[in-house]
């Protein structure tokens, strides 16, 4: 990181301090160096950079198990039927006026029902402050900025490991980060004892980022019993639970089941925050649709909090995009379309569960000396394989298989067509481990 002084020195050196009057009087500014000449090339995003590299690879055998975007069994991206139908209904019928700063009222209402329950008393009593956000990223960022503005001395506890962009989000919001232990490399499961220790040892009233289901990148979720214990300990410590729910419906195939952790916390009386995304479960990736909600003590407070969330959105993008929100509210607001969506999301989840089984079976059949139980124990889009960065590099260089270097496999990229090839390659690089 360059200090301000160093930057200034660098600039002066490059430009030369004295500019001749002739140069100044000229029409152009050609005598000047670039103001941005000192800008360093940024490191590629570890996740999105994988797809870039994949696209650049000419090999016919290449496999992309990097980004968490769903693929069908032919390896093709999917637009859900319910989405196509919703788009047909939307096109040509409505105008494109600005949404309110807080976004689509209908989309928000439907989102709250999904997260908090159809008959949630909190919805009835209007205790939830909620705004439309730019998918999960945008929801987390709004919350982080809001947390910074209203609780400037708070920090955020983030699990190890987590989605890499979580760190970027809270860093850019200038909220100091701490971590809590989560993943147990030896078992490739949950390090529950350490997790509970870290919860207990954090100062009272700490903010925690929790993955509601289908933890990214590990696929390791607490059991229901474990969630209850976590919730209890949160009560004792008065911690603030912030849920990032990016995979509701996608994990087990059942949105209600996938919201279980949140419902447990709500039953226990926590005032939660929640980021929701429709990127995966409705396949709306590029539309950037999500919702940020904060459960408040009463309606008055919810109104105040919502108004302040809007104040953060306004200088960022004024108001959120309308198209994706319309798709969501059209689908969830129509019983037939919603029913279709539920079937389609289950279909996606089932295919992934099937691929987990296939990958594990293949590896076991190959006689791998390692245990691959975790492939079927873990849940959601990702499998934390346990492979090292060096092994991942070998997969890429020798087998043209692309994944993030933390060994995270996007199961959505696995098909009946490539699972054998994938298992073989993994076996090759791990058999002497």
């Amino acid at each position, binding site marked *: 990181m360059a200090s301000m002084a160093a930057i200034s020195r660098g600039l002066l050196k490059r430009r030369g301090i004295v500019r001749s009057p002739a140069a100044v009087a000229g029409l152009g*500014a050609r005598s000047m160096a670039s103001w941005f000449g000192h800008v360093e090339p940024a490191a590629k995003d570890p996740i999105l950079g994988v797809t870039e590299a994949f696209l650049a690879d000419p090999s016919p055998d290449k496999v992309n198990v990097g980004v968490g975007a769903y693929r069908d069994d032919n390896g093709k991206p999917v637009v859900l039927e319910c989405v196509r139908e919703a788009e047909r209904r939307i096109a040509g019928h409505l105008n494109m006026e600005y949404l309110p700063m807080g976004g689509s009222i209908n989309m928000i209402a439907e989102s709250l029902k999904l997260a908090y329950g159809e008959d949630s008393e909190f919805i009835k009593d209007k205790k939830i402050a909620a705004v439309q956000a730019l998918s999960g990223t945008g929801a987390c960022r709004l919350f982080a900025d809001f947390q910074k503005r209203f*609780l400037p001395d*708070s920090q955020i506890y983030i699990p190890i490991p987590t989605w890499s962009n979580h760190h970027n989000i809270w860093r850019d919001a200038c909220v100091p980060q701490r971590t809590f232990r989560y993943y147990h490399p030896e078992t490739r499961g949950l390090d529950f004892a350490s997790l509970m220790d870290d919860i207990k040892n954090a100062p009272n009233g700490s903010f925690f980022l929790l993955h509601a289901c289908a933890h990214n990148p590990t696929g390791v979720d607490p059991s229901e019993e474990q969630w209850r214990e976590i919730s209890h300990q949160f009560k004792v410590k008065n911690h603030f639970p912030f849920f990032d729910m990016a995979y509701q419906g996608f994990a087990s195939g059942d949105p209600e089941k996938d919201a279980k952790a949140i419902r447990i916390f709500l039953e226990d009386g926590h005032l939660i925050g929640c980021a929701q995304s429709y990127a995966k479960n409705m396949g709306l990736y590029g539309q950037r649709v999500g919702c940020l909600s904060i459960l408040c003590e009463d309606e008055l407070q919810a109104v105040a909090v919502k108004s302040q969330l809007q104040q953060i959105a306004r200088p960022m993008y004024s108001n959120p995009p309308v198209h994706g929100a319309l798709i969501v509210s059209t689908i969830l607001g129509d019983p037939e379309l919603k029913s279709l969506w539920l079937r389609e999301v289950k279909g996606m989840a089932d295919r992934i569960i099937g691929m987990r089984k296939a990958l594990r079976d293949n590896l076991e059949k190959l006689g791998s000396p390692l245990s691959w139980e975790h492939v079927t124990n873990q849940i959601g889009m990702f499998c934390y394989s346990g492979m090292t960065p060096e092994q991942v590099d070998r997969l890429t260089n020798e087998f043209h298989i692309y994944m993030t270097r933390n060994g995270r496999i996007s199961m959505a990229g696995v098909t009946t067509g490539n699972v054998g090839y994938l298992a073989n390659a993994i076996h090759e690089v791990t058999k002497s481990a």
Partner: protein
Amino acid sequence: MAHDKAGKTMEGDNMRAELASPIFRLNTLARHLGVSCSLSPPSPMESQFPNQAIYPSPTAGFSGGSVFANVVQAPEDPILGVTVAYNKDPSRMKVNLGVGAYRTEEGKPLVLNVVRRAEQMLVNNPSRVKEYLPITGLADFNKLSAKLIFGADSPAIQENRVVTVQCLSGTGSLRVGGEFLAKHYHERTIYIPQPTWGNHTKVFMLAGLSVKTYRYYDPTTRGLNFKGLLEDLSMAPSGAIVLLHACAHNPTGVDPTVGQWEQMRLLIRSKGLLPFFDSAYQGFASGSLDADAQSVRMFAADGGECLTAQSYAKNMGLYGERVGALSIVCKYADVAVRVESQLKLVIRPMYSNPPIHGASIVATILKDKEMYYEWTVELKAMANRIINMRQQLFDALRARGTPGDWTHIIKQIGMFTFTGLNKEQVAFMTQEYHVYLTSDGRISMAGLNSKTVPHLADAIHAAVTRIK
């Protein structure tokens, strides 16, 4: 890693923990942002801070207390609040001249025909998917947007010196540009015209810049205070960022002439100031896309660097789709490459990648000759209707013998007219005539039609004669 917002370094974390008092923090922030931020009331900056939580309670106690219990309600956004108030008004004869969203002669929002066509094409294309766009957005859209604003034959584009990233309309482009500058540029002060769009100050402040102003509008002439503008920019420190409205200045509608733009360009380049253009009305002001881009092109053509925020909200009627682009013209192609990589680091933690729908519509239109032509025709029609409304309002006031010089109505350009009415007169018009406009006297001409012009003229006449 770069400095955090408001110029504090990461080492400041520990210090901040000690100096935890909220009052201290507010004062520190206010001091950093400088005392010379003078905006006409209601000042967004001034009104922002009193509404922050004053006494945070980190351990609210688990009796169900919320950690956000002390959050107070934010004031209505002054611009969007006008529409909220208008909607609440039960009166049959009411006119909304608040938000700058185009309305037809029938007072209805308009979706351009060519936009509907583009949308249908997208819907009917079964191979279309909705995958994530790259962080920088849709590549076609970016290239076409750069050509639109800088000109297809722009040397800067041909020399690969322009980096363009898709952002969320004008607001998003300004914010991403501002954050990039706060992280990577050596000067943290941006000069904005007085007055300017109400959201500019907050956008740049939250991006991490300090905001100062330069004189722009002259209330006595209802025109440009060119002398004041030149003086103020001359006093700016070398390297300071200058926000320029490319055309159709919001809220005044007062634009420099071509000759004045050239003088400004010479001054800005000689002082080493960095221009940041906000282009929200290209094609909407005069009806000509090229004419409305002239100011930007002058700067892009002189070999120097600049930033440009583009919006398709008004000129393509894509308001709610949030389509825009940020371009940075760099001196060298290799600099542009590095700048693009750093822009990604600003965008990723904000929203990862931009929304696909609106950009797809724009790209579809811009790349098709026939659709592009149809767009220019529809755009010209919108601009002409507004010019027509200006003339009608001017004529109506003259017919009533309304005291004062109202020629500024036809001299100003774009969607807005700065009437010159004061707060009291505005309040009077709202109360007695149910005419809704922002308290700075700005009216959105797009909200007028032949039926409502007489009513507005009556209201202005009454306000001017009864309230001083």
